[in-house]
């Protein structure tokens, strides 16, 4: 088990490094950061001054190693635009993103677990069809558009919820639904498949034959086993929620790290962008790692893989 964890850790670190190298390169392909930073009306001379001032004139690998060296020590530098330490900016906004992520994954589980179980009890029934339909819609609908529909309904027509901002708990309701709905289909399908699988297994038949009450068979014997892969998928989805809330936060002007990512991307704010990419990928890597470990702990067959 220790060896398994160490292997996974090394792989996780390699993934994080690769992501940061690729993103650093991509940022440079999107244009000279000095030109973006100097503003449209800057002269050649002014751009040259900024290029030198911020060290953009050095070879890209040198800049990257310099950045990496500082990042490893927790120093993400100063935002070129806000003139504030990047780590302060990110951590002041991370709370909003984490809150949203936790709300969204809870919402997703609240929807997907009961629906997955119900549709597994009676596969191919009307209820199952409805559940599948909801899942397909959730998978297909673009989140910015779903968010807009909710705004139209709840903010404009009904006037119940604020369309934008992050000042009250009401501001989190619509973003939670949008982000959570995105994670629902996968969780629901896995619950359904797991339940169908478990319900047809021998020990369930034995439990039923012993005359246990159906509810006890369902929840104590079946769900507990069927839910194991769902827990690890939920961990992975949580990584998605934290790193993938850029669109949702931008649509609702929710003042989290995803919104900051949009702001820094649209301004070529290299240092903030790099830090966020690293942090977002770390979220994903850490949660995927946790899911792997959890799965291996629950199922020894996976440890050798």
């Amino acid at each position, binding site marked *: 088990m220790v060896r398994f964890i160490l292997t996974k850790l090394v792989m996780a670190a390699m993934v994080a490094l690769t992501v940061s190298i690729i993103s650093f390169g991509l940022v440079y392909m999107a244009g000279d950061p000095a030109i973006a930073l100097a503003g449209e009306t800057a002269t050649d001379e002014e751009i040259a001054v900024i290029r030198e001032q911020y060290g953009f004139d050095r070879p890209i690998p040198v800049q990257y190693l310099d950045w990496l060296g500082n990042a490893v020590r927790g120093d993400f530098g100063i935002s070129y635009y*806000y003139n504030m330490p990047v780590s302060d900016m990110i951590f002041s906004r991370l709370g909003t993103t984490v809150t949203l992520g936790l709300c969204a994954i809870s919402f997703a589980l609240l929807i997907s677990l009961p629906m997955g179980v119900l549709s597994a009890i009676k596969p191919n029934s009307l209820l199952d069809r409805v559940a599948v339909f909801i899942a397909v819609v959730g998978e297909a609908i673009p989140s910015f558009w779903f968010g807009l*529909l909710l705004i139209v309904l709840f903010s*404009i027509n009904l006037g119940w919820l604020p369309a934008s901002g992050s000042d009250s708990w009401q501001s989190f309701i619509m973003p939670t639904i949008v982000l959570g709905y995105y994670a629902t289909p996968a969780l629901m399908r896995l619950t359904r498949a797991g339940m169908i699988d478990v319900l047809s297994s021998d020990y369930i038949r034995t439990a039923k034959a012993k005359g246990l009450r159906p509810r006890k068979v369902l929840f104590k014997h079946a769900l507990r086993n069927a839910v194991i892969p769902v827990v690890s998928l939920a961990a992975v989805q949580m990584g998605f929620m934290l790193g993938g809330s850029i669109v949702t936060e931008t649509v609702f002007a929710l*003042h989290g790290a995803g919104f900051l990512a949009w702001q820094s991307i649209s*301004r070529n704010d290299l240092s903030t962008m790099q830090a966020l990419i690293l942090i977002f990928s770390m979220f994903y890597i850490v949660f995927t790692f946790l899911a792997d470990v959890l799965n291996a702990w629950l199922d020894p067959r996976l440890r050798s893989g």
Partner: protein
Amino acid sequence: MSLKRFLSAGAIALALPATASYADKANDTAEIVFMRDLDNPDLYYSTARSAVIAGFQAFDTLFYRDTETGEYVGNLATEWEWTDDVTLKVVLREGVTFHNGEAFNADDVVFTFEHFGGPDGVAKGRPGFNWIESVEKVDDYTVIFHAKAPFPAAMAYLAMSNYIYPNEYYAEVGSSKFAEKPVGTGPYMFDSIDPGKGYVLKANPNYFEGPKHKAQIGTINVRTIPDVNTQLAEMIGGNADFLWNIPEDQAQKLQSSGRAEIINAGAVRVGYITMDAAGRTDPEGPFTKKEVRQAVSYAIDRQAIKQALLSEANTVIDSACNPVQFGCETDVTKYEYNPEKAKELLAAAGYPDGFTTKFYAYRDRPITEAMLNMLAEVGIKTELTYMQYAATAEAHGKGEIPITFLTWGSGSITDVSAITSRFFKFESRDDARDEEVKQWLDEGDSSVDPEVRKAAYSKALKKIADEAYWLPLWTYSINYALSDELDFVPTEDEVVRFYDMSWK
């Protein structure tokens, strides 16, 4: 129209039967929604438009450009005189105080220009400082500017973005603290700033009687909402009084909803196509031939594009400048849409079957594609490279672009030196490299006699049009959306003046 725009427009259309409550007038608070936030409230560290807008409300410049007459009048200055071509003597307004109570005097002016613009100046955008050799204090209310060379556009810069900072307060708190609580002399005072989210301004009750008048609305709440559709939802829902830069199709929807008044006003920004006449991409490239550049100019139906894809306030232009800018000669060679003539010119240039070229662009994709189709009709086939502005500007500066569609906002400076002189004086983005044009522009840029300047710029702009170095396209415009309680008249310099806003 992209899928996103299509779906979004549909969603907003569903919102029409809404009921809304407008409560802002009762609180005397105008809700302003911008797409981009104020990145650094220590404004000299920002080159963003949002900083210019904040600067106009909370700070003052020495001069002010009257937007109706175009004349420069005193603001923090009361009298001024060019004692020779390079010396500007300015008498300052007495009795003005900064928002923190600090008295305004010559030390503040000298500090501002030395700290941000001097040899070690820290300002990020410096065109407003580059012309200054030094600033000298004569007495508490008199300063003298020494220019490096005659610089006729000095007043334009001094009136636009050289906000006067309080020297004592800034020295005491430093840049980062100043960014938390900026202090100026302007009609509005910063009340609070939430970085990335927005800021709140309160009317300055002690504002002096100058060309910018006192604020008429007590509180201005500026919020950042990046998504245009969410902005529209806030306006329809009665939670916004003012939106800015709304795309034309969305503006029409909002107008038809009856929930907002849309004002479409002109802007300094112009669009243009520039071609590699100097042969930097290829010494034998097609655009080194005048006939080919003229063919491009005849091939594009700018009026049709304007009617189909732009709005009322956009004007088709023929000179390499905006007609509102000083020195912008409009009596130049015009290229009316004439595809047959374009084909003839191509044949005369040795391209009877046309040719294929790379075409770069960074904005207005539907317009770009319309132009490319028009070029294809006369035989100029294009491979579109669509990139971010910084990437396009970088490639252009390196001389790697044969033909590109760009726009230029001149930093809202209404003087030809802020546009034509920037692109035709052998800087990296000069595609023409025409010695004669450069000489005329130098003459216009360095004379303080308006007539001499006009004559010099006229010659340069006429030659640029004759040679078809650029195909000037149109001026841009901006859609402003106002709630039915707010009164506001936009200005053509794209600076939103909150102190001009009032309740109906």
